[in-house]
């Protein structure tokens, strides 16, 4: 399957949308070559603000730009966007409902070489807990582009997680992405996997292998991490014997926790969570090495499905 860069898709989408929307501006903290916001800088230098390595000021400055009518896209690594500038997101942006779009790039373990300080196991968990925030986690380059378009249409603060590595393209070009909607990406009837980001791909691989063993598993791309709607979850969970969640994030306060709490009263079927087990990342030669180390592979997901079904 063809792999494409989500980062590049993000930068290109900004450039495309910037052509027809003069209110779009971009802010960077000296990582533009990684986040790909430099593409916007090349296209519209007057609308690009290099804020230096000062994420807190960058984040509050974006709030000011939004309060005066602009649509600012703030880009930096997920770990800095969510951690270094947490209170700036909370006060300057979220309480104010400022129309700021935050790109947490190199999310999860995807910046495999740089290790603990640069990998974010908790960015989505943190941002999801802030009222007024919307959180997106695209599965591939095509969905990334669709999401950036949706972010511009939506009035309010949005956080988008972007994987550093190229990922297989599974989203149809003509998908009409809507914030809050979930997308079925592999059919099945016995169990359902609610997966997000890169874990969707591993979940599809797991479902394909399980099919060989006669186990039929539906895979859902949960690309909106907030709002997570019970109705959407119920659409896919209602007729299944087991549920698995898969995310490249700390299990504490993660998507799995939330899905479990949303479904608990209505669907009492066994549930397994595939997530990072309350640990920081570490350096590795490859992204795949890390996914193996943190038990986020297709094998881990397949095992979780079997465990859940065994208890069904």
């Amino acid at each position, binding site marked *: 399957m063809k792999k494409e860069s989500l980062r590049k898709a993000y930068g290109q989408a900004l450039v495309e949308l910037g052509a027809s929307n003069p209110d779009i501006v971009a802010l960077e903290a000296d990582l533009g070559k990684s986040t790909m916001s430099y593409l916007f800088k090349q296209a519209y230098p007057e609308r690009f603000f290099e804020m230096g390595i*000062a994420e807190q000021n960058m984040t509050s400055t974006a709030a000011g730009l939004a309060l005066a009518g602009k649509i*600012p896209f703030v880009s930096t690594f997920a770990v800095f966007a969510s951690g270094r500038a947490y209170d700036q997101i909370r006060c300057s942006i979220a309480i104010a409902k400022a129309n700021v779009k935050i790109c947490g790039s190199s999310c999860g373990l995807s910046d495999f070489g740089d290790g603990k300080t640069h990998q974010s196991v908790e960015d989505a968990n943190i941002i999801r807990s802030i009222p007024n925030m919307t959180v997106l986690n695209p599965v591939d380059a095509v969905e990334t582009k669709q999401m950036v378009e949706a972010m511009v249409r939506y009035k309010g603060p949005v956080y988008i997680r972007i994987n550093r590595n190229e990922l297989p393209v599974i989203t149809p070009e003509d998908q009409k992405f809507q914030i809050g909607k979930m997308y079925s990406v592999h059919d099945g009837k016995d169990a359902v996997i609610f997966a997000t980001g890169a874990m969707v791909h591993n979940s599809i691989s797991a479902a394909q292998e399980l099919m060989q063993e006669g186990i039929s598993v539906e895979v859902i791309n949960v690309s909106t991490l907030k709002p997570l709607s019970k109705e959407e979850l119920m659409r896919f969970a209602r007729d299944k014997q087991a549920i698995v969640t898969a995310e490249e994030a700390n299990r504490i306060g993660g998507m799995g926790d939330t899905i479990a709490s949303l479904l608990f009263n209505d669907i009492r079927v066994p549930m397994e969570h595939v997530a990072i087990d309350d640990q920081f990342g570490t350096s590795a030669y490859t992204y795949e090495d890390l996914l193996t180390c943190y038990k986020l592979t297709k094998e881990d997901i397949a095992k979780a499905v079997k465990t859940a079904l065994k208890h069904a």
Partner: protein
Amino acid sequence: MVDDALVKKLERITLQLRYDVVQMIGVGKAGHLGGSSSLAELMAVLYFYVMKIDSSNPTAAWRDYLLLSKGHAALIQYAALCELGFFPRSELHRVKSLEGLLQGHPDLSIPGIEAVTGSLGQGLSISLGIALACRLDQKKNHIYVVMGDGEQSEGQLWEAAMAASNFKVDNLTAFLDWNKVQATGATKDIFSVPDLGRKWASFGWEVFESPGHDIRSIIETIEKAKAVKGKPSIVILDTVKGKGFSFAEHNAAFHNGIMDQATYEQALKELDQKKRELNA
């Protein structure tokens, strides 16, 4: 030249703002009297003379902006906005209540408030964003932001200071309420940030100083600051925390203190005395 009638008018407004603040705090409830009253003259000058604003159209595209980065002084801003008609007087009497409009710190739900502030250190950055947006749109709005001196220990302020000078922003004027007292004591004892003028100058700002309770001087200094082109400007106002109230002046206890009945009456008595002097 600033004419005497204007100064007199703004002095009367300043007095009214202090009355409003005392009445908002009332008896037995905590309120930021100290840092509100150190700003009374500046609020009167900005809101009632310098700024272009319209209470019947609080978000007019042409308006000037005023942000309190030291959001805990919200009471003095609420007093000014109320006197200008941004919201009814009844709101002042239920400030910080569950039913009221006026939050403990500035909130965007309040007409005339331009940003959410209160977590210190963020207001200058937000102001910078507004200034950059106005410049992109080639609009003439001017942005004013007020910081505290205790707040100067927030690192984000200095990030914003560097950014504003990097971007050569000159539609932004900052004020530093140099009242020398913060929540738990004198700034020199709690966390000294000396040589503020030289610090701001070395960060690329044009620095002005003015007595902070002298209306004529404040007006003249703002005019000079606004005339600076190609760089941001800051006015350091030499103020007294708790100004106008003998029991609160220079007194950290009234950063967010509680007035008992006797203290409350004394506050009103001192304002009445000031009123008689102004009318004499």
